[in-house]
């Protein structure tokens, strides 16, 4: 069984977090200047490599777990054969196992990881632009837009793009919601974060009512809509994964490119402006990027809460708020968290519960703990 191993790696990760913080404080006190800078850089690199390693390990373990147990050695054989293209080595693996891993488990595993990464990344940017550590990818109503799109498809049994009807509708509607929010919040003074949050709340309220109405009309089909809203990776395909991955890579590049400007905008609009940033333009670019990323994640998986809120918070505690470090670490941490959660519901629990429920169940109390601890500290 895999879970003792997961537990060990989680414990190791937590240990690393606490150790890192102590080291950082110590070294900040002892040294200063460029030497310190390069130390910090190597520690950051080490953290990235470590998280990447954990993610790979988790993928491997997750692929071996499930209704059919597949040994790690068999998996290793399968992967090397696939990657190196060795046909005869591939044939040594049982065909059933091959199909289960390649066509069923891996698409789901990779999609879960990519969606986790996307939500975390999007959350970091939202919190930065909105100057609000409590913002998440859904603050501006992207999720409600997607949910409304999906509800319409499910309600009227639309079928324009085959299996992709729901994702396409969800994406288009969240894009439209974003356009409305930006239109609502832009005034002569440019886009301010308060205006954005308010407009997001307005759109979410309207769309929630619309979704409730869809549910009411759906009558006996209501369970399908509810099930979609709760989020699931059960039917993820390689196509889903590639879609999310394309957006993920593009947005990562965009966000890292603007990471310094994001730091400056955290100082407030006026100060950012005096340090050479055009706040309105920056907000518009990054908002569009992170919303599209969130929209594509929601479209393929449904509404999965808390990842985009929790991960940026946790990671900020380790790396500090500098976005150049925060972004890549959040990406990996988000992937690990959501893949971990999905593996738990897929392979460990006696019956599968919707992933959105699970993340909220884990995330809620954890967030409560973090929040409480910080209040006690002040």
């Amino acid at each position, binding site marked *: 069984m895999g879970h003792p191993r997961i537990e060990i790696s989680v414990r190791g990760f937590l240990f690393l977090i606490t150790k890192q913080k102590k080291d950082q404080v110590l070294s900040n006190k002892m040294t200063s200047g460029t030497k310190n800078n390069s130390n910090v850089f190597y520690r950051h690199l080490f953290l990235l490599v470590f998280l990447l390693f954990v993610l790979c390990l988790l993928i491997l373990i997750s692929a071996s777990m499930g209704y059919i147990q597949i040994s790690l050695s068999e998996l290793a054989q399968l992967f090397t054969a696939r990657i190196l293209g060795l046909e005869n080595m591939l044939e040594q693996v049982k065909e059933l196992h091959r199909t289960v891993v390649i066509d069923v488990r891996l698409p789901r595993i990779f999609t879960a990881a990519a969606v986790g990464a996307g939500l975390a990344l999007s959350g970091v940017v939202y919190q930065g632009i909105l100057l609000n*550590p409590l913002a998440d990818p859904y603050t501006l109503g992207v999720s409600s837009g997607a949910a409304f799109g999906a509800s319409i498809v499910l309600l009227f049994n639309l079928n324009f793009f085959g299996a992709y009807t729901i994702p396409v509708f969800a994406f288009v509607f969240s894009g439209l919601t974003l356009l409305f929010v930006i239109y609502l919040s832009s*005034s002569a003074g440019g886009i301010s974060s308060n205006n954005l949050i308010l407009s997001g709340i307005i759109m979410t309220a309207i769309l929630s009512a619309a979704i409730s109405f869809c549910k009411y009309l759906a009558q006996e089909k209501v369970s399908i809509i509810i099930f979609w809203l709760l989020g699931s990776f059960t039917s993820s395909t390689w196509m889903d994964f590639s879609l999310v991955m394309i957006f993920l890579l593009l947005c990562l590049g965009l966000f890292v490119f603007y990471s310094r400007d994001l730091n400056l905008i955290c100082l*407030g609009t006026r100060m950012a402006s005096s*340090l*050479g940033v*055009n706040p309105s333009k920056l907000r518009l670019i990054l908002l569009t990027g992170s919303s599209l990323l969130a929209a594509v994640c929601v479209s393929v998986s449904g509404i999965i809460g808390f990842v985009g809120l929790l991960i940026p918070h946790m990671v900020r505690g380790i790396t*500090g708020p500098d976005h150049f470090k925060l972004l890549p670490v959040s990406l990996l941490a988000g992937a690990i968290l959501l893949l971990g959660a999905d593996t738990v519901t897929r392979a460990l629990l006696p019956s599968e519960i919707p992933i959105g429920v699970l993340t909220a169940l884990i995330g809620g109390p954890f967030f409560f703990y973090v929040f409480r601890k910080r209040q006690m500290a002040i």
Partner: protein
Amino acid sequence: MSFSLQKVSYSFTGSENVLRDVSLDLEPGKFYGVLGPNGSGKTTFLDLLQGHKTAASGRVLYKDWDINLYGKKELAREIALVPQDFVLHFPFSVREIILMGRYPHLSRFQMPGTKDIEIAEKAMEQTGTTKLQDSLITELSGGEKQRVIFARALAQTPEILLLDEATSQLDIRYGLELMKLSSKLNQDQETTIVAVFHDINQAARFCDELLFFKQGELDSLGPIDQIFSSDTLNRIFGVRAKIFFEPFLESWQAVFQT
């Protein structure tokens, strides 16, 4: 001329003009004090100078060119702002914040070099924030934060320093020290300073020239000894004032009576 404003007006949507028909010239190397009652357009005036807000009509010229023709980063290398209030929700360290003052001088992915770190460390020394450098900005008091923000502006090595009631939250000693520091920058490095003051006497003590704003209009502009009079103060603030020379400070001061 550092700045030249030609019939500049600015307004928010749905409100009256915040600034109306302001025309003036600011010379390089001088220490200007901006005074006026609340809501008279002082902060908007500073925002126009740093290119954060764009005039609705009229033109703002910086070094003889329209300020909108400059790139944001280009302006940030020459003009720095110390704002009055400052809220930060993210736990950046003081050192990180001060080094951000170097960002306009660095290309996008360039790490701060030895020279940048020297400049930042000098700014910390000058503002008495060296000891705070590893603290998190979210844990500092209002006065400490304001000194950090001041240090960040110094690290920007600006030709023009805009202060928006920059010493309003500081204890009397630090407030005076920062004003003296600004004064010294003004004399030694010929940094032009445009400072909005709440405290009229502090303005009288440190500035070369004063600008008085009233209800969005420039009332008067001129050297202290010509413009700092009980008449002016009465007209602008609606209080009776007595002006006297204070030998302890070697400057003109005012006392007020309603």
